[in-house]
């Protein structure tokens, strides 16, 4: 079924493209694992919609199903078909490098989307399109600081941080962004301790329980994603500790709901639709010869209880 819709899509976009412009760009994409989570499923739909909406683009949409070998074969297929550009959502940041190099040698520009490949492959990549985790961390620090200022506690507030799984780039970058930015915007706020919550709601709840025993006075919690943030929130509710400002990242549906309930203050909104559209646009811009930064980030805005009406509830 998927295959036929994809073929149909290729045909219609080709027809439309032929009618509207002399030159059609053929852009192939090999995705990581559509269907494994709602983020990736939404991403694919948004990508197809964006390609259909653009008369100059003919899209070849493939999915590796999480399988590195299949992704490499798909890269080779796309090279054989001589597409104009390839977008890849790597199944594995190291293993796909030879395939990326092959495309590069065939003079097909490669855009890496969502998660970057390992650094030794950067020479073969035209551009990376994805979220900027350092900025996400520093924006979370700003959200926290603004809230403390509104509450009038910016001179004395104490914050704990629950970070993602140790060793993960996303975890390290978000923590770094937060830790660097917080003293710049709120120099009198203290970050008293950081412990990892391993991207797990349960682990984060346990960590927060220990924090609550250890510190009588906690004004804010920064969590590396909303799953962990909600875990920490559950711990605080259990212990009847009110008035703590919770700020997360990657706004999940649970985080959005907790914000709607007034329990959770803010997060960073990372939309799979923006992610997909940014990847396609990056590829188009490269084919049009525009000068792009190597790290071409898409915007991940701040979301708080105050502006959450402007955002749709996340699907994941």
């Amino acid at each position: 079924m998927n295959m036929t819709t994809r073929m149909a899509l290729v045909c219609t976009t080709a027809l439309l493209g032929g009618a509207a412009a002399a030159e059609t760009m053929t852009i192939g994409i090999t995705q990581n694992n559509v269907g494994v989570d709602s983020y990736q499923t939404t991403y694919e739909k948004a990508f197809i919609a964006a390609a259909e909406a653009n008369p100059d683009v003919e899209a070849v949409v493939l999915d590796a199903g999480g399988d590195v070998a299949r992704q490499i074969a798909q890269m080779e297929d796309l090279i054989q078909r001589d597409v104009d550009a390839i977008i890849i959502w790597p199944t594995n940041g190291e293993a796909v490098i030879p395939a990326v190099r092959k495309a590069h040698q065939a003079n097909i520009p490669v855009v890496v989307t969502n998660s970057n490949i390992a650094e030794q492959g950067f020479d073969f990549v035209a551009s990376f399109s994805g979220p900027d985790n350092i900025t996400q961390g520093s924006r979370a620090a700003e959200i926290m600081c603004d809230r403390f200022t509104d509450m009038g506690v910016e001179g004395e507030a104490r914050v704990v941080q629950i970070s993602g799984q140790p060793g993960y780039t996303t975890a390290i970058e978000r923590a770094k962004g937060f830790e660097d930015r917080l003293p710049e915007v709120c120099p009198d706020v203290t970050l008293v301790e950081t412990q990892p919550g391993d991207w797990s709601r349960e682990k984060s709840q346990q960590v927060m329980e220990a924090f609550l025993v250890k510190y009588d006075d906690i004004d804010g919690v920064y969590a590396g994603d909303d799953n962990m943030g909600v875990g920490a929130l559950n711990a605080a509710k259990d212990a009847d500790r009110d008035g703590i400002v919770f700020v997360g990242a990657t706004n999940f549906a649970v985080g959005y709901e907790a914000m709607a309930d007034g329990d959770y203050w803010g997060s960073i909104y990372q939309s799979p639709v923006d992610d997909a559209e940014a990847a396609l646009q990056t590829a188009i811009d490269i084919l049009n010869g525009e000068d792009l930064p190597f790290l071409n980030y898409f915007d991940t805005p701040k979301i708080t209880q105050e502006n959450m009406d402007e955002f749709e509830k996340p699907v994941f």
Partner: protein
Amino acid sequence: MAQFNKSDIGALLAKQGILIAFAVFMIGFTLANPRFIELDNVSGVIRSSAILGVMALGVTFVVIGGNLDLSVGSMMSFSTIVVLDLHDKLGPGLAIVAMFALTLALGAFIGFLVGYLKLNSLIVTLGMLSAIHGLTLTWSGGKNMDIADKSGTWFAFFGQARVMGVPVPILIFALLAVLLSLLLAKTPFGRKVYAVGGNGQAATFSGIPRARVVFMTYLLSAFCVATAGLLQASRSMGSQNTVGQGMELEVLAAVILGGASLLGGSGTVVKTVIGVLILGFIQSGLLLVGLDFYVQYIVTWIIIILAVWLDVAAKRGRLWSPIA
């Protein structure tokens, strides 16, 4: 007044080496941060440990019976996801019944493979670890599972309520520990489990239905996993697909720390409970002391080795016993 001589005390120490280790850590962490021993923290740690603890109770039977169960973490994720998903579709009561039935079916399947087909339990359960993970992902489509109306359901009782001031997970853990301890120590079934794990052939010759006993230990383990999944789901009212990931090793560590032999035939429920508490309190203690978290992994390992060493040393009656 009772008279103790040196050998009595020695015998007592030998029997309770792991308890002594436990006491040493508790005192050490309390000295490092007095809040460690406060009632709130102690009750919080036991409540957090209850989920791991309930799983370890079941695995104790499997290990005493001479087998391993590495599928419990992945199976717990399955139970949690299934009960959360069905909660909104069938209502809490039916969801719990269905989840227990499905989890027990998985346990029965493993029990059949290991007990009746005599397949190696390490291979079977290691394979089931990833197979069940796949099953869970297929069930959920990879999505986080959340109960839509978190405040309007009695489902929260198991994980969040208190009865006479005691958190319900602790009560369930304690109740199961007492029941299973009696089952293991005081019933013919319990004796058969020891016999099968201690010397399988001798057990067969004395007419013990080995396959059925092994099958039952896996069914029991699955029952405990389902209970743990219920506690987990009820506590968070939502979950990731990977909630139990890696817990199989923590469970095994707790069981072995409690003194059960990996070769089967020895171990008790009470000692497993102590093993569970040691792991729980180490985690809490290290957080309260506030060690850098990269170092915590290393220190956790050192403490576990110390505990095992103290236990073994107490049994041997000396700290140092070279091989030969």
